[in-house]
C-alpha cells in the first residue's frame, strides 16, 4: 500500500503495510451528538458484516488514575497535561487501535487527536509542538465533524446535565469566574481551533443541527460508500 498511513512516520516497530482495517473518526464538540450517532452506526456496520472496534478518549489503565488525581488538584501545567493525554492516546493507539487495524477491523473513534490538540492549544500550548507530538498517529480514512450551532449545544448541555462541566467550561483557564460566560468563551475558542484544523486535516463537515435521523442517514451513506471503496476495490 503506497498511501500515507501516518501523519509523519509510524511509532517505532510499527509496520504500516500490515494495517488492513479502516479508521473512521467522529469528531465534534460536546453535545454535538457523537455518541448517539456512534451507537447507531456501530451495529449497522456489523450488520453489513464488518467487525467493529469502538475507541474513545477514555482513560487507559496506564495513566487513568494518575491523571484523575492530577486533575483533582488542577496543579499541572498545560504542557504537562498535554503530555499526560498524549501518553494516554499513544497507549490506546498502540494497544487498541493498531491491533484492531492489523486484524482488519473497522475502528470507530469517538474523537481523536483533534479534540486533544484543540484543548491543548486553547490552554496555551504551541500548535507546532502539539502537531509534532501527535505526528505518529494513524491518518483516519475519514474524519466526520459534527457541526452544531452554539445555541443547540447550550440547550442540549443544560437540559441533559442541568449544570456545566468544570473542564468543558474551561474553568481551569480562568477565562471568567462566571461559569456560563467561561463556558461560552471556551467553546468559542475550541471551535476556532477546530475550524483551523478542518482544512489541514481534511474534516468532512456534517450538519448536525438536523434531527438525529437525518444526521444518521447522512453518515451512513458516507460510511457505506467508504467501506465499499476500501474493502471491495
Amino acid at each position, binding site marked *: 500500500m503506497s498511501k500515507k498511513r501516518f501523519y509523519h512516520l509510524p511509532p517505532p516497530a510499527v509496520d504500516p503495510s500490515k494495517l488492513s482495517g479502516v479508521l473512521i473518526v467522529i469528531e465534534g464538540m460536546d453535545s454535538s451528538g457523537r455518541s448517539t450517532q456512534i451507537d447507531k452506526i456501530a451495529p449497522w456496520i456489523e450488520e453489513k458484516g464488518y467487525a467493529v472496534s469502538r475507541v474513545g478518549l477514555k482513560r487507559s489503565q496506564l495513566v487513568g488514575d494518575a491523571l484523575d488525581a492530577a486533575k483533582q488538584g488542577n496543579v499541572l501545567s498545560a504542557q504537562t497535561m498535554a503530555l499526560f493525554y498524549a501518553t494516554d492516546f*499513544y497507549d490506546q493507539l498502540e494497544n487498541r487501535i493498531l491491533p484492531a487495524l492489523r486484524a482488519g477491523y473497522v475502528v470507530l473513534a469517538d474523537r481523536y487527536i483533534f479534540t486533544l490538540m484543540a484543548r491543548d492549544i486553547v490552554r496555551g500550548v504551541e500548535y507546532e509542538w502539539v502537531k509534532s507530538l501527535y505526528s505518529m498517529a494513524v491518518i483516519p480514512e475519514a474524519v466526520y465533524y459534527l457541526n452544531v450551532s452554539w445555541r443547540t449545544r447550550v440547550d442540549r448541555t443544560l437540559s441533559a446535565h442541568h449544570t456545566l462541566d468544570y473542564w468543558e467550561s474551561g474553568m481551569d483557564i480562568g477565562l471568567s469566574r462566571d461559569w456560563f460566560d467561561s463556558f461560552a468563551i471556551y467553546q468559542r475558542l475550541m471551535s476556532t481551533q477546530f475550524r483551523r484544523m478542518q482544512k489541514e486535516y481534511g474534516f468532512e463537515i456534517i450538519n448536525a443541527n438536523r434531527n438525529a435521523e437525518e444526521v444518521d442517514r447522512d453518515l451512513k451513506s458516507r460510511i457505506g460508500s467508504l467501506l465499499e471503496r476500501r474493502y471491495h476495490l
Partner: protein
Amino acid sequence: MNNNEALPGKLIAVEGLDGSGKSTQIHLAHQWLKGMGCKVFFTEWNSSELVKEATKIGKKKQLLTPTTFSLIHATDFADRYDRQMLPMLKGGYIVLCDRYIFTSFARDGVRGCRPDWLRSLYGFARIPDLTLYFRLPLKTSLERILNGRPNLKYFEAGMDMGYSLDINESFRIFQGKVMEQYENMFKSFPCVTIDATKPIHDQQSLVRKTITETLDIAQFQKGGPK
C-alpha cells in the same frame, strides 16, 4: 531548545551511564554549594510525585511501548520543569539535575524513537548552562553494576527490546547502545567530559572547578550581592 529568555538562575546537568558515579558527584557538588550558603536546588530524573503512579503501573505491568515509555518520562520531566526547575531558575537558584533530556535522547533513541520527534518533544527545555558528561568504558560501567547486587529492573535492563532472555546480558547490550548514543550526542553538543574512572575526590575537584568557572558563586550566596 528554548533559551530565549535570560534567567537569573543557572542550570547544571549531569549525564552518563549507570555506574558512572554521576549521582555521587552531583551529590557532593550539592553539599559543597549548600555549605557555602548558595541558593541551590536538586532534582532527579523520573521523580515527579504526580507521574510516579503511572510510571509504576506501566513498568510493573510491562505495558509500555517505546513511545509511551518516552512520553511518560517526558510528562515527568515537564511536571518538574514547569513547577520546580523553571520557577527556581527565575528565582535565581542554581538548579542541579541528575540526568536531563539527554537521558531520554539516548535511551529512547535506542528504543527506536526518532531523534527529530524526541527533540521536538523536549523543545520547551532550556539548554543547561553546564552539562557534565561522566564518561567511562562500557566494561567498567557494567562491572560496577553487575558485580554489585544486580537487582536490575525490566526496563532499566532494556528487556522490552528482546535482546536476550538473560537480564544481565540484556543490560550489557542495552548499555552498550546507550553509550553509543551518548558518545555521538556529546560529539556535537557542548559539554564538559569528566573521566569517571578517576578517584572520586579528583573528579569532584574538577567538577567544582568547572562550576566555579561557569557561574559566579558569590551571586548565589544568600545575603550575597544581587
